[in-house]
């Protein structure tokens, strides 16, 4: 009885709340449509990580060789398995540094945020919708990459799946925190796109897309460990291969998220 009363009471403040929820739902669906309507977006955010992993796995002679013949743990994994956490980090970087901040800054530049602020729906809802759409795209991209990786090029499953998932979640939080800083202040789409591209390529480098981190000089590895996606790539790899617990990497990502998100929220320019 008391439960029913509570629910009813919670629902009564009524129409504005429900039109707000309806507005946010509609906005998210619309932003999702616009996301896939942009072919470039759709390709790089949704398909590219899976394509990269399968093409490398099928074409590269090293793909089926041991990831590291000298390492007693790593030699049990194929090189393409070793590349998988890197591809996941790339998928995160793509949405967090390119599509998401560029769209938000373009909306600021074109007065779309201003137009929204003339309606009963707060303009912050478009940020919520954008983050939702980009996270959705990332989930599709990561799932697609994993499914194709496992079925087509024989990627081996992770030793500690929960740790990999946890590291992935932190990777998302820290990368979106950094991306949000760009989204918060970039006055125009091209500015955000430039800053985002810089963050994106640095991230790919530190995540080991071009050269796996263990092969890089120690100094580079130290710096990589402090970047969201360098840390993400190493933490996911540690979970994948059952290496020692990546405490430092997880901490680095948590700090990026805990500092970056509130900072971006404070700096966000709504017009």
């Amino acid at each position: 009885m008391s439960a029913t009363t509570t629910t009813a009471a919670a629902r009564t403040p009524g129409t504005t709340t429900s039109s707000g929820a309806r507005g946010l739902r509609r906005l998210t669906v619309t932003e999702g449509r616009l996301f896939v309507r942009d072919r470039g977006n759709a390709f790089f955010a949704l398909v590219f990580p899976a394509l990269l992993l399968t093409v490398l796995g099928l074409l590269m002679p090293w793909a089926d060789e041991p990831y590291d013949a000298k390492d007693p743990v790593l030699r049990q994994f194929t090189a393409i398995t070793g590349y998988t956490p890197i591809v996941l980090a790339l998928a995160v970087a793509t949405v967090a540094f390119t599509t998401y901040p560029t769209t938000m800054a373009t909306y600021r530049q074109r007065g779309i945020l201003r137009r929204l602020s003339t309606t009963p729906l707060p303009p912050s809802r478009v940020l919520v919708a954008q983050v939702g759409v980009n996270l959705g795209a990332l989930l599709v991209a990561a799932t697609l990459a994993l499914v194709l990786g496992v079925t087509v090029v024989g990627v081996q499953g992770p030793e500690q799946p929960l740790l990999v998932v946890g590291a992935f979640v932190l990777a998302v939080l820290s990368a979106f925190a950094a991306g949000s800083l760009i989204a918060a202040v970039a006055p125009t789409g091209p500015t955000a796109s430039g800053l985002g591209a810089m963050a994106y390529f640095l991230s790919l480098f530190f995540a080991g897309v071009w050269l796996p981190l263990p092969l890089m000089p120690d100094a580079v590895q130290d710096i990589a460990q402090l970047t969201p996606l360098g840390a993400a790539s190493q933490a996911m790899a540690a979970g994948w291969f059952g290496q020692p617990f990546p405490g430092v990497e997880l901490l680095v990502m948590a700090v990026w998220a805990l500092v970056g998100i509130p900072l971006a929220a404070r700096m966000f320019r709504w017009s």
Partner: protein
Amino acid sequence: MPTPVIEVDHLRKAYGGTVAVDDVSLHVMPGEIFGILGRNGAGKTTTVEIVGGLRTPDAGEVRVLGLDPRHDARRLHERVGLQLQESELPGRLTVREALDLYASFYADPADPATLLADLGLTDRADTQYQKLSGGQKQRLSVALALVGNPEVAILDELTTGLDPHARRETWSVVEAVRARGVTIVLVTHLMEEAERLCDRIAIVDAGRVVATGTPAELAARASAEQVLRFRPSAPLPDGLLDGLPTVTSVTAADGAVEVRGADDVVQDVLVALHGLGVRARALRLEQGSLEDAFVSLTGRSSTDDTAAPLDTSRTSSRTSKSRRA
């Protein structure tokens, strides 16, 4: 007398050291088209942004439909539609999607399909925003300002950047909207637009309202002096017209004469000419216009360089620029 829909009293707003709005007071009555006329930078946009709850004033009182825009912004936005300058939409959003989306933000929205038909956009419903013409974008913008079924619509520089045809089209849209019973606040720097559409106008200059009234009332204030132009059929003796008591100035050039003066100047001049057997050919009497009122009230001519917004050549160059873009 009905209660004003919008009451603005002694509004003031500065950005840093720049005073955008110095002292603006206006009352907008239900059902009217109220014009806010002034040059760019006169403080018009800041004023309506405050009225629309997008900015907080430094001083002054604002009530809109009995609400305080500062504290009731959300309730205000349910009832007041705002069309702002330079507010675009995502390029790949279609006209129908835009209206459906914005309709979902309101508790009691208008029917998007009816609105599309009213604004002549039905055949563009599935066109993406980036492929619309300037006039179509403006009409969509008006449609979005109306999709919440507002009691008041604030339209800021509605026809800037439109060619004359699209401009006229947009004007008839505004008249149609008023016919639905919506009170309209029209912000403009175009004389012709204000004169054609507005029931009452507030002329704003340097952050202050310098006059408020119907276009005819404002014009009448400036027409204390009448202007008479003609070509005399024979040369006039020097001093003939200057000597008349109602004449304030006479200028002659290329055989044409321009006479300015008070009330009865027309009759006095014609009588004087008649006395010499001279005819006034190509006679034109300039009636006081809103433009004259504007110039006399703001102390600057519309072709003044600093008065760029009123200058027609500047307006048309902006038009062609935005068409190219």
